[in-house]
């Protein structure tokens, strides 16, 4: 009896370790994630000048926004808005897709805030980023 219970507990701990190991890495190599990544990569060539001019900034919730429309010539404002909207659609989909792909849809918020910090941290000098409600230039 005692041995059986002990064996049961040992196997429980083995299960704990197995679960822990499986959670140690987030799977980002899924068709969904890759498709969104490629779409964002292609769009970045158009967004980069907007980041550099300060027209578009990185928000604290992991998205981008047109923070200074005057920095964009009137004729290009509509396409800048469309770029921002498309980028945010991809970013929202990316956070949800990573959470779903790892079997934890409820992680979406935490994944979003992790990304928000990393986008801002890795932003290039001159780009505008949002922190604590205010904007600052890297």
């Amino acid at each position, binding site marked *: 009896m005692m041995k059986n*219970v002990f064996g*049961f*507990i040992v196997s*429980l*701990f083995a*299960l*704990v370790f197995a*679960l*822990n190991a499986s*959670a*140690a*890495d*987030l799977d*980002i190599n899924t068709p969904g*994630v890759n498709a969104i*990544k490629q779409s*964002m*990569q292609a769009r*970045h060539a158009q967004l*980069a*000048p907007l980041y*550099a*001019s*300060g027209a578009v900034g990185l928000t604290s919730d992991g998205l981008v926004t047109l923070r200074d429309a005057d*920095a964009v010539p009137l004729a290009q404002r509509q396409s800048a808005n469309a770029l921002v909207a498309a980028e945010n659609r991809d970013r929202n989909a*990316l956070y949800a897709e*990573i959470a779903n792909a790892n079997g*934890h849809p409820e*992680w979406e918020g*935490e*994944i979003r805030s*992790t*990304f928000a*910090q*990393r*986008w801002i941290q*890795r932003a*290039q000098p*001159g780009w505008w980023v949002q922190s604590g409600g205010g904007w600052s230039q890297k």
Partner: protein
Amino acid sequence: MKKLWIAFAGLALSACVTINIYFPAAAAEKAADKIIEEVWQTQKADKSGQKADKPAEPAEKEQK
């Protein structure tokens, strides 16, 4: 004695659940960095060296 074992097993089981729902912050950061590098192509440009320096500069500075 038996009750003690059951309590212990229950504790172990709840540890299981706790670990399973715990958000892996470090792994998320690693995943985010990897994706950001690919989307912004920062890492590749840095590593290959030559490509990073030249094209970015002239156009962007004048817009300020």
